[in-house]
């Protein structure tokens, strides 16, 4: 599992992914962690299959008992099916996830970790040295869905929005936006079910100052590519499986 520090000014943002040992048959995922002093927030920690490489990679950057918080943007297995294992590794941690999914996520096995349901309108989490905001992204693609915004680092962890399906050795950042479009077009058209939800999200994130948009699959958008993505997404017709 490769770990790349994408922000390091007082607190750090670390991206984990591009695991060369990942079985071919499972989708490549990006996991993120904010390290702020002696507290860390692990975001969309991934499925059971990536648990061991993830934990191994994390232990280069933070102590186990410093990982005080976990965030799951929604309920999908590639996001959080490792919960039962984190539950045994981090028994004192808190899981922040949509309130809507609590009863479902507990099926992954949660006997120790505390579930902190995020209300529909979102809220904030204080990590000591930094506050992050849970931004509503309902129906993008899950009925209860949030993204994480760090106003200090100007990073939006955007879950499945901005995701691209490509090889696990792909570069970390989008270099040529136009060239990147075919890698994400089908994903957004099919996985995102609602134009109304999409436009609501577009309106909301346009009010945020974003330098990096970090999705759960594919590459990170940086600088002007963030605005280009938002414009492209706004114009895209989604929910195409309905004839």
């Amino acid at each position: 599992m490769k770990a790349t520090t994408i922000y390091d000014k007082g607190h750090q943002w670390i991206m984990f992914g591009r695991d060369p040992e990942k079985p071919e048959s499972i989708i490549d995922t990006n996991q993120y962690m904010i390290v702020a002093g002696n507290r860390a927030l692990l975001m969309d920690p991934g499925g059971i299959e990536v648990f061991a490489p993830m934990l191994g990679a994390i232990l280069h950057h933070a102590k186990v008992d410093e990982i005080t918080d976990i965030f799951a943007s929604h309920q999908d297995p590639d996001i959080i099916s490792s919960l039962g294992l984190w539950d045994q590794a981090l028994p004192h941690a808190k899981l922040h996830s949509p309130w809507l999914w609590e009863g479902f996520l507990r099926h992954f096995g949660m006997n120790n970790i505390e579930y902190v349901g995020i209300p529909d309108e979102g809220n904030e989490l204080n990590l000591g040295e930094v506050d992050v905001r849970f931004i509503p992204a309902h129906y993008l693609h899950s009925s209860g869905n949030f993204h994480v915004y760090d106003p200090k680092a100007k990073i939006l962890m955007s879950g499945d929005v901005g995701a691209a399906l490509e090889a696990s050795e792909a570069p970390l950042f989008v270099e040529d936006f136009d060239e990147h479009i075919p890698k994400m077009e089908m994903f957004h058209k099919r996985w995102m079910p609602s134009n109304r939800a999409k436009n609501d999200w577009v309106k909301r994130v346009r009010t945020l100052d974003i330098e990096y948009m970090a999705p759960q699959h594919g590459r990170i958008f940086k600088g002007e590519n963030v605005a280009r993505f938002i414009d492209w997404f706004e114009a895209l017709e989604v929910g195409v499986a309905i004839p």
Partner: protein
Amino acid sequence: MGAPTEPVEDKLVALASIAAELHSVMGVVWSVSLAGKNAKVISAQAGDKGLGFRPITESIDEISQQAIRGVDDISSEALRLSKIAVHEQRSIDAYQRFNSVIKKNVDAKYIKTILPAVNKVEQSMRASISEFKKSMNNLTLLLETMDQCMLTARAVASVSRIVTSSGQEYRDKLTVVSNDLDKAARYIKQRLLNSYRHLNNVNAQR
């Protein structure tokens, strides 16, 4: 080339199968119980003439009650065992994954901080293994007791036939009851045999 071997049944499947075998027995046991109670009523209605049948009808009723309790106990124990097995499997899985993290990341700065979690998981795993053993022994004992109960049931059915052969007006009704008891006992014995086979599969994997 060796002889082909039968695939080993998964431990969790084997335990669920025991519960399923016993579930199918419950209906039979209840119908015997009902028949036993019916036999008691018949012998009571017979007044003095039915006195000779009473010990038999009492025995049938007692055996069916014992069988109901036995099936309940076995089902509960099999369910408990399944839960312990799932917990044990989860602990083993976590333990193995934690150890693979340690093995592959010896150079990680904070690798030692995972050790308390590894120890805790190891303790939980060992506790589950020990609890599983105890529960397996309980289940074996319960199956043996039930087996004994069915032997008694068959013996009572035989005696019942002899007694009813000397009876008169209630003979037919009680013969039906004793035949049902014998049939049920044979059916339950077969289910117990199947349960033993599943239990052996669980033991083979330990």
